């Protein structure tokens, strides 16, 4: 291969990377730099960032907003755990169907909700859970309850919304890793005297761990920054950090404070991605 050809390839490669690079710099990097910068500034009239530089926004993030921040971490972890407990057996079940058509059809059903806008699906959940909604109507007609339950605007409603919204992100990576699992390992385990339970925990689960970790990250990250679900279904009792960030931007908020909370949230997400790259891909 000649130098000219190599240079031509490189030029073409650079050319192909340019649009995406431009996109990322303008729409990702620049806003991020602005947020990082303004998180160290003071609040000016109307909530805009002004000098002098200060750490006050971070201090406020960890003191006043700390409880909501940690609660959001807890909510996101619990949503991840519930998604895992629900998603793993389902992914396992789907991947063990013999007919590829059945597997494709079941996977198609898992992905079907994505065809509809998330906001619309959240409103659908609201109509199910609201005071004069479907569930309360059902329970009342069955005589289980005499007065409608307050289901909407509770932390449980947020949990239902988050798990509902992000469960497919858990199922798909787990499905992929169970699918790729070589059944002969399981047979070997059984031959060596392991019962199904032992074979699962000592062979199957460790081998599908990358899928579990990938799914967990994919659920945890959107869950911790969730805004729509807690806003529409959580009310005052299901408040999450995303709602407080939203309140700081826009009219008469506090952009530097909103930026500081966003940076802390970003750090939390970054840490979970580190966890993923450290343990999630170890087997590969």
């Amino acid at each position, binding site marked *: 291969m000649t130098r000219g050809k190599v240079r031509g390839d490189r030029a073409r490669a650079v050319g192909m990377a340019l649009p995406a690079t431009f996109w990322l710099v303008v729409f990702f990097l620049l806003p991020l730099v602005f947020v990082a910068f303004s998180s160290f500034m003071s609040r000016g*009239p109307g909530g805009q960032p002004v000098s002098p530089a200060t750490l006050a926004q971070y201090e406020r993030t960890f003191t*006043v907003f700390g409880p909501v921040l940690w609660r959001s971490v807890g909510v996101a972890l619990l949503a991840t755990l519930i998604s895992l407990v629900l998603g793993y057996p389902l992914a396992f079940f789907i991947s063990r169907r013999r007919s590829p058509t059945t597997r494709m059809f079941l996977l198609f059903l898992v992905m079907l909700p994505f065809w509809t806008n998330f906001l619309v699906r959240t409103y659908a959940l609201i109509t199910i859970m609201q*005071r004069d909604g479907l569930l309360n109507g059902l329970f009342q007609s069955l005589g289980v309850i005499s007065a409608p339950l307050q289901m909407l*605007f509770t932390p449980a409603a947020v949990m239902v919304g988050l798990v509902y919204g992000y469960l497919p992100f858990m199922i798909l990576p787990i499905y992929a890793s169970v699918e790729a699992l070589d059944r002969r390992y399981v047979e070997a385990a059984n031959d060596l005297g392991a019962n199904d339970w032992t074979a699962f925990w000592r062979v199957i689960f460790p081998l599908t761990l990358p899928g579990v970790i990938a799914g967990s990250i994919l659920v945890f990250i959107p869950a911790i920054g969730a805004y729509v679900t807690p806003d529409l279904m959580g*009310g*005052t*009792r299901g*408040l999450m950090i995303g709602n407080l960030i939203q*309140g700081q931007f826009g009219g008469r908020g*506090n952009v530097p404070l909103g930026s500081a909370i966003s940076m802390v949230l970003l750090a939390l997400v970054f840490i979970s991605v580190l966890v993923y790259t450290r343990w999630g891909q170890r087997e590969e």
Partner: protein
Amino acid sequence: MRRTIVACLAAAVVSAAAAQTDWTCPDGFAGQTLSVYNWATYVADDTISNFEAACGVRVIYDTYGSDEDMVVRLRQGNPGYDIVVPTNANVPTMIREGLLEKIDHGKLANLGNLDATFMNLPFDPGNEYTIPYQWGTVGIGYNVDKVGEIASWADMFAYDGPVAWLQDTTAMLGMGLLMVGKDPNSESAADIDAAAQFLIDNGRNVIYIAQDDGQEILARGEADIVVEYSGDIFQVMDECDCDTYAYVIPEEGTNFWVDSLAIPKGAPNKALAEAFIDYILWPQVGADISNYTAFGTPNLAALDEGLIDEELADDPAIYPSDETKARLFFAQQSEGREPLLNDAWDMVKIFVGR
């Protein structure tokens, strides 16, 4: 949305009467164009066409759904509007950013028709830039079947069932200040913190802080009481066509809002815009608009001459008694107060409802 057709029927009846407006257009505008940018459903059916006929002009009429949309559009450079209708909360910012033209009061022969209560308010002292258009209150919308009759904020706080509040920092903390016996426009950090603490301590049954959808929470039965803008609750009452819902201006007093006519910087036809404002100030024209929107009119002459539909004029939820009217307060924003309110409201959002 705040601006909604509440009295469609009334509007239909009135539009027949409104055909004869005695307002006369100053000479020399024939053939010109006026461009108006207003909230949706915020003029009577024939307000615009009557003006076109009176002046022999053409009116381009655009609408917006939120004040922020309008402000953002003007910030990018006035695309050619002569009239906009900002809410009081945004006026100081618009003035500071140089988005508005001063209005020549000499061109407004009908200025004297306005109620002094709505003139010279802190958002625009001397009404240099804005002329009041419609007004309303932040009050209590409630489900009569569940709550019974209520008359005050104290009644709301005494109720145990689910309640929703409004995401309006100045109105809500102003109410909190009233409840702890302070000036609703206090600039003292201690007062504002006490108000926030009062709201937290007495808001254990608050399930939701509505952005601007409290009326839907009420209509869906999720909350029995909601703090909302008057117009939003009128909308629910109207759509339901039942006696389930009511709106009350709390007797302790509450925040009121004013939407105003203003001329954006760079308006192509400022003289015609001033003629338009004077036309709106004509009692019959102002009355037609308020009969259609069911908001309060600042046009005292229209009220005095009995041009407002009786059913609206006698409704204490729109035009409160003099006693309650005297307790209405106008929320003031100042640079010192703003961050205090902001921080206090964050605390309310974090701790209320638990």
